[in-house]
């Protein structure tokens, strides 16, 4: 009864009601969107690398190792000797390893020397393996496989020639011009730093550094040509930057980690990527909490708009309240009527907001995945989301109880004397 009155009363003030609902809807969509993005970002962050049990590098900080080996940020302070790498790689508990050699760049993108095991074993977002949109893994020494962003940003296709710069500067004067690489594969977007990486065979890194002693140009005449470098007997590197380890059995991971950290002949550090990623996220996550707080305030603004709309309508509705009283409505009916109106506005705002948010996500999901590799899980509302939305409706009811209380008081003092 009161409910249908509330509905029709809102219907009568359609435009105000719609605007109020729209304001709440937009704010709720924002809040929910931030919440979804946050979850997606956290997940995709945690999913930057998966299936790798340990990452091993020279002894430094856990975050430092994670940053340069996975995110290609910063530099290694020291390398891992080839002997140590081989020793660990051949350990019976180790299923596979991915060597990583960093230090060069190509037009702002990091160059990573590795083996085809990289394409076989590197996983991200849980079960996802690296996929070639075009081409295939390394077959020859000067083959290069590009991450999706690199290929797109630089407009490279299969067969394009790539010249690797020595060092990390964007415009490096020391170009390995004499040893051009050829693009043999392009990877699908992953939403991970893989997209921004230029992959070359590990041996190629050795080859292009054959005539480099340190970062200075070799003396003219002392250069070794591309074919000569290729024919060089041994391109096995002396050292690598880091390597990733997959264990035969997960339960052996901790034992292996301890063994590596206590390795005598060389100071090494082994980290478990998941643990290190969580630690890193805790650092980065502050920003997204801030975003959430802002979205919360926007919702508050939406609800305040509703409060304003209801409060301003109160005076012109005093007569309506007196009429309802005259036909037997009690003051608590008046109170309920106004709280119900607030609840209806808040609830429709929340529903419309959810619809709006999902509509936008549906529209944006393919774009985000294609361009940024960010996978938005189009899942239903989590219990946490539902609790959040429920809290908004409850907050709306609470806010509505203020004008309702005022109407209640008015109705007691006005009686039936309808003074205008």
């Amino acid at each position, binding site marked *: *009864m009161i409910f249908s*009155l509330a509905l*029709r*009363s809102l*219907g*009568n003030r359609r435009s105000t009601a719609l605007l109020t609902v729209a304001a709440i809807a937009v704010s709720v969509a924002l809040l929910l969107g931030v919440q979804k993005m946050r979850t997606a970002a956290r997940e995709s962050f945690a999913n930057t690398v998966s299936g790798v049990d340990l990452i091993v590098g020279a002894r430094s900080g856990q975050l430092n190792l994670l940053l340069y080996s996975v995110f290609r940020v910063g530099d290694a302070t020291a390398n891992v000797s080839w002997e140590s790498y081989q020793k660990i790689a051949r350990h019976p508990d180790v299923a596979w390893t991915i060597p990583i050699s960093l230090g060069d760049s190509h037009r702002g993108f990091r160059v990573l020397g590795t083996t085809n095991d990289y394409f076989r074993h590197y996983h991200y977002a849980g079960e996802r393996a690296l996929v070639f949109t075009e081409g295939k893994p390394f077959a020859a020494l000067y083959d290069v496989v590009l991450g999706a962003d690199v290929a797109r940003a630089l407009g490279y296709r299969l067969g394009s020639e790539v010249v690797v710069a020595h060092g990390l500067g964007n415009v490096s004067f020391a170009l390995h011009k004499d040893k051009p690489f050829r693009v043999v594969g392009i990877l699908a977007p992953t939403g991970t730093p893989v997209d921004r990486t230029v992959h070359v065979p590990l041996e190629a890194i050795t080859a292009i550094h054959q005539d480099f002693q340190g970062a200075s140009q070799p003396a003219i005449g002392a250069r070794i040509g591309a074919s000569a470098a290729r024919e060089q007997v041994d391109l096995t590197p002396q050292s690598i930057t880091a390597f990733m380890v997959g264990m035969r059995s997960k339960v052996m991971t901790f034992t292996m980690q301890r063994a590596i950290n206590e390795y005598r002949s060389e100071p090494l550090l082994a980290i478990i990527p998941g643990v290190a990623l969580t630690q890193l996220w805790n650092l980065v996550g502050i920003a997204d909490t801030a975003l959430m707080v802002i979205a919360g305030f926007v919702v508050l603004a939406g609800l305040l708009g509703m409060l304003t709309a209801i409060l301003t309508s109160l005076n012109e509705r005093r*007569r*309506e309240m007196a*009429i*309802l*009283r*005259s*036909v*037997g*409505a*009690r*003051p*608590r*009916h008046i109170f309920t009527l106004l709280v119900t109106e607030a609840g209806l506005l808040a609830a429709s705002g929340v529903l419309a907001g959810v619809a709006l948010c999902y509509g936008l996500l549906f529209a944006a999901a393919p774009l985000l995945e294609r361009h940024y590799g960010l996978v938005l899980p189009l899942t239903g509302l989590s219990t946490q989301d539902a609790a959040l939305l429920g809290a908004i409706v409850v907050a709306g009811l609470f806010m509505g109880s203020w004008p309702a209380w005022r109407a209640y008081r008015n109705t007691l003092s006005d*009686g*039936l*004397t*309808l003074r205008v």
Partner: protein
Amino acid sequence: MTAAIHARELTYAWPNKPALLDVRDFRIERGERVFLRGPSGSGKSTLLGLLGGVLEPDSGHIELAGTDITPLSASARDRFRGDHLGFIFQMFNLIPYLGVLDNVVLPARFSAARAARVPNGDLEGEARRLLDALGLGARDIASRPVTELSIGQQQRVAAARALLGKPEIIIADEPTSSLDADARTDFLNLLMRECGTQGATLLFVSHDLALGGLFDRTVQLAQINRALEVAA
């Protein structure tokens, strides 16, 4: 037989104002049609608020159709009002967002007793019958938004609402003050006739002397209100 309305030793003053009403004995018999007259601001509407149980007297008793409502709780008085009284006000009587029919059946939504007194429980049929009796028979009236009705039509809809579910007492607070002279007598005649049909008691309040002749009895508020004498 008890009276329809019986007020005894009734006093009332608005907060922080001098005594407005002091009624020793005011009695209206069942089925009587009484015209209560008094100048603007003399306390007529306040008296109706007391009779309707919306206001609580400072002292005294009000008996309506045999029930003393003064000892009742506020919500019991609200229920009593919904069950036994029909109100018509000067203007803006209708809920703007409800249609004509919904406005008329409104009392039955708040009072089960009023709904129960509608023949066969056919609220809409009864509403149409009342509208018809009050000269709003044209079929399209019922479906129009109330805001599109003339003031005269609105007052008739309000009268139909007051009469729905056969309340014992109809209280009309200057319902004709916004109408022109012709509409005024038309409205009054129809209202009186329908009150007669239903056997309802009518207490009609106005400051307009000219209407007095149509009623069983005319009462000056000054005659029954001792507070006014003192003030004057």
